[in-house]
């Protein structure tokens, strides 16, 4: 019997992947993972935040593998997390335990504990620094030792882990209502698909893992005109949060017996949004509400945009797309949006043939 | 006369909010108008009971906030009742409290037994679909699967409500308010529902248009014998249409009677005020 072979894509795929490797390495330059974690802080932070997986080490591998393509790096990390067991949940992290590295408020000129600029691009003049062309290791070393040896004015007992929060100060003033801790168990969107209407925990989780650009754009739209949020940044903090987990099998709830496992860097924003509410006498009154944003690493615009969208979705009147939870939450995920857009590259000739058939028949019908 | 009402409503209650110590007990509740000043709970409908008989038009009149529209929405399942019962003669032999049925059954009742004409045609029509499509939608919902038959029925109804057949494929968004309202009525009538709800159907229309819509409703009722519940804040509309009238205030029925009696011999202070302001 004769044998008929099919020649197809298998070889082409192999060659395509080889070609990709060639593109990455043909210039014969080696990028160490340490170089990425040490010098690409912004990219590493963005990748960790969008992939919802905190690991500078894995992010660096992903960035290297994807040649610096953030979308692809996020994709790699997300796929990798599907293969890892999730063994623990942390104790509830209270963000007032943050070791602050930067902290500002736009609401007050000065705040208890002070405006601390930390490391920020905000006041750099965005001029190209051509000195970077000839940067040398020796020069770097010298700069650092000079920096560290600079006289530090003695500030009495600095403790950046117990800075008071601006919102607490205003709550003391009764400008915000005191809110009891709400210990409702959150829903994990990675274990249970979104069901509308969503809970607050689902919204915050989707927002924090959202694509930076998408979240920023929608946050911008919400304050520019396609939404109704007019926020003031009450407090923006960048710093490290310590993590604790309880013993996996011991039943004791004694926190003294917890494991400390390390810390993660986050950006946290509380935006103050004036809203009008009806008071007891049925007259309108102004009150502040808080929009909350937090994300991995130092991603300040993203965290602020999250705080705007958080408030937008809490209002949720759907007059604007930015208040429509389905519109916002279903479209900001990097892996989902880039995946579906890119699937348009797949062949569609069967569906196209079907469409052609339908159109030809309609044409015939109208010619009758 | 012992004919069974086509629709019986008993002790229908609808509240927005949880209620508090001051207002939860209906017997000694301290509220202002229809809401509790303390917890802001709104008692939109309180213990509403009435019967709708075959072929009659029952008017419900009251100012905004009286609960009349909420009542209508509850009966059409647009809103869930807080408590109460309702029975429809042609559904399960009138033995089942329709409020306790599932949303699947509610949809069935809406599709087969009820018709609704909203004040705002946007709520009752798909503005971007053809007028004939709009009418067909209701027929489809009621199980019709023949295009030709639905097309014919739509034409017939559009003619009935004086929409030129030449415009049957136009979308309602291209129509005037009065025409939209007439398409909506045609749609609501398409599957011959035994019960039709009309919510402020002439509000916002020009006077001459109002007149033609009212006339249309009356004619339809006469010719098809459909039972109607007409909600309006406008006594003139009620006078034109209703045989019997219920007056609502702050979520309660304060008076009911023959329409001419309500108009000429109103008993309640509020009804008197309403009637005097009409004349």
């Amino acid at each position, binding site marked *: 019997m004769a044998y008929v072979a099919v020649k197809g894509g298998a070889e082409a795929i192999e060659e395509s992947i080889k070609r990709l490797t060639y593109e990455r390495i043909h210039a014969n330059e080696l990028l160490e993972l340490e170089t990425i974690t040490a010098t690409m802080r912004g990219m590493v932070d963005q990748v960790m935040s969008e992939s919802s997986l905190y690991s500078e080490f894995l992010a660096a591998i992903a960035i290297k593998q994807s040649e610096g393509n953030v979308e692809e790096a996020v994709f790699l990390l997300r796929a990798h997390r599907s293969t890892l067991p999730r063994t623990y949940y942390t104790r509830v992290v209270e963000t007032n335990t943050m070791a602050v590295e930067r902290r500002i408020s736009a609401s007050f000129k000065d705040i208890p504990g002070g405006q601390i600029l930390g490391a920020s691009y905000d006041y750099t003049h965005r001029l190209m620094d051509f000195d970077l062309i000839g940067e040398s290791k020796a020069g770097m070393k010298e700069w650092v030792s000079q920096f560290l040896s600079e006289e530090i004015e003695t500030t009495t007992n600095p403790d950046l882990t117990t800075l008071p929060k601006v919102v607490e100060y205003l709550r003391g003033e009764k400008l915000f209502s005191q809110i009891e801790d709400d210990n409702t168990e959150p829903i994990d969107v990675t*274990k249970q698909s979104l*069901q509308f209407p969503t809970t607050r925990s689902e919204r915050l989780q989707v927002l924090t893992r959202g694509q930076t650009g998408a979240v920023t754009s929608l946050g911008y739209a919400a304050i520019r005109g396609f939404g109704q949020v007019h926020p003031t940044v009450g407090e923006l903090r960048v710093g490290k949060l310590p993590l604790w987990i309880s013993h996996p099998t011991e039943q004791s709830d004694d926190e003294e017996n917890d494991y400390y496992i390390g810390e993660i860097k986050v950006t946290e924003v509380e935006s103050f949004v004036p809203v009008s509410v009806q008071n007891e006498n049925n007259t309108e009154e102004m009150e502040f509400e808080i929009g909350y944003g937090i994300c991995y690493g130092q991603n300040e615009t993203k965290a602020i945009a999250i705080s705007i969208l958080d408030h937008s979705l809490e209002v949720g009147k759907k007059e604007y797309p930015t208040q429509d939870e389905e519109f916002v939450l279903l479209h900001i995920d990097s892996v989902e949006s880039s995946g579906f857009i890119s699937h348009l590259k797949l062949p569609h000739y069967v569906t196209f043939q079907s469409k052609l058939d339908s159109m030809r028949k309609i044409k015939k019908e109208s010619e009758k | 006369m012992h004919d069974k009402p086509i629709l019986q409503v008993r002790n229908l209650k609808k509240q927005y909010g949880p209620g508090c110590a001051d207002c939860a007990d209906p017997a000694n509740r301290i509220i202002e108008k229809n809401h509790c000043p303390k917890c802001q709970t709104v008692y939109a409908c309180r213990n509403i009971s009435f019967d709708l008989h075959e072929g009659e038009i029952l008017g419900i009149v009251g100012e905004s906030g009286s609960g009349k529209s909420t009542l209508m929405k509850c009966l059409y399942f647009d809103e869930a009742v807080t408590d109460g019962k309702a029975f429809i003669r042609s559904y399960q032999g009138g033995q089942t409290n329709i409020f306790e049925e*599932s*949303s*699947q*059954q509610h949809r069935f009742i809406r599709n087969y037994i009820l018709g609704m004409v909203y004040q705002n045609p946007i709520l009752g029509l798909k503005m971007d679909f053809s007028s004939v499509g709009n009418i067909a939608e209701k027929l489809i919902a009621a199980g019709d699967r023949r295009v030709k038959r639905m097309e014919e029925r739509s034409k017939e109804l559009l003619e009935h409500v004086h929409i030129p057949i030449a415009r049957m494929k136009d979308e309602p968004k291209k129509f005037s308010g009065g025409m939209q309202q007439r398409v909506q009525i045609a749609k609501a009538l398409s599957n011959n529902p035994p019960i039709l709800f009309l919510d402020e159907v002439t509000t916002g229309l020009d006077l001459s248009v109002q007149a033609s819509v009212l006339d249309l409703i009356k004619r339809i009722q006469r010719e098809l014998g459909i039972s109607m519940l007409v909600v309006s804040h406008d006594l003139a509309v009620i006078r034109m249409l209703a045989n019997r009238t219920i007056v609502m205030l702050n979520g309660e029925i304060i008076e009911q009677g023959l329409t001419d009696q309500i108009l000429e011999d109103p008993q309640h202070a509020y009804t008197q005020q309403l009637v005097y302001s009409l004349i």
Partner: protein
Amino acid sequence: MAIDLVHDTQEVFRTFLHCMSRPGTIKNIEEIGRPIGQHEYCQHSIFVSAITLLDAETRFHVVGEQADLIEEFLSSFTYSKVVDLQAADYIFIMKDAKKQMIKEVFKEAKKGTLTNPQQSATILIETDRLSNGNQLTLEGPGIAHTQNAEIVDSEFWIAERAEAMKEYPLGVDIILIDRKSNIMCLPRTTIIHKREVY
């Protein structure tokens, strides 16, 4: 324990999938995960069924003389939470369950909601014997024409099951397991006719 969590549960699942897709069809899982020692509280096929379906994300309930012991045993193995009948995703009715309790199960078990009919209980019933005898006739999706079935003690729950299914898509789905580890499934779409006995 010689059970292979990866491949044995896959095999059991495929059996369930086959039987759920073809109500009335009988398949045997006696040999899956063998050989291992006797389980103290329930037969092996119940145990492998449980570890196939249950994990920390699910909630279950056992009805029978030794319910507490079986619940503790399965829970420690799967981390699945033991809950009341009304909240259970999976309900195990053991052979020695009181008949009154079986009726109770069908009354109280989650039937799902119209928006989320999948949020309904799956009931695993242990029975003495399953066969394709002609006591019952089954009809519905998954069955080409009709399918015969014989389920020992089914008279205790057939009417209650029908009552639980009265508003499709609400309902419960059933996995039957007999003493010889035969499996038969009755999804909510299956209509059961009792053969008249003369």
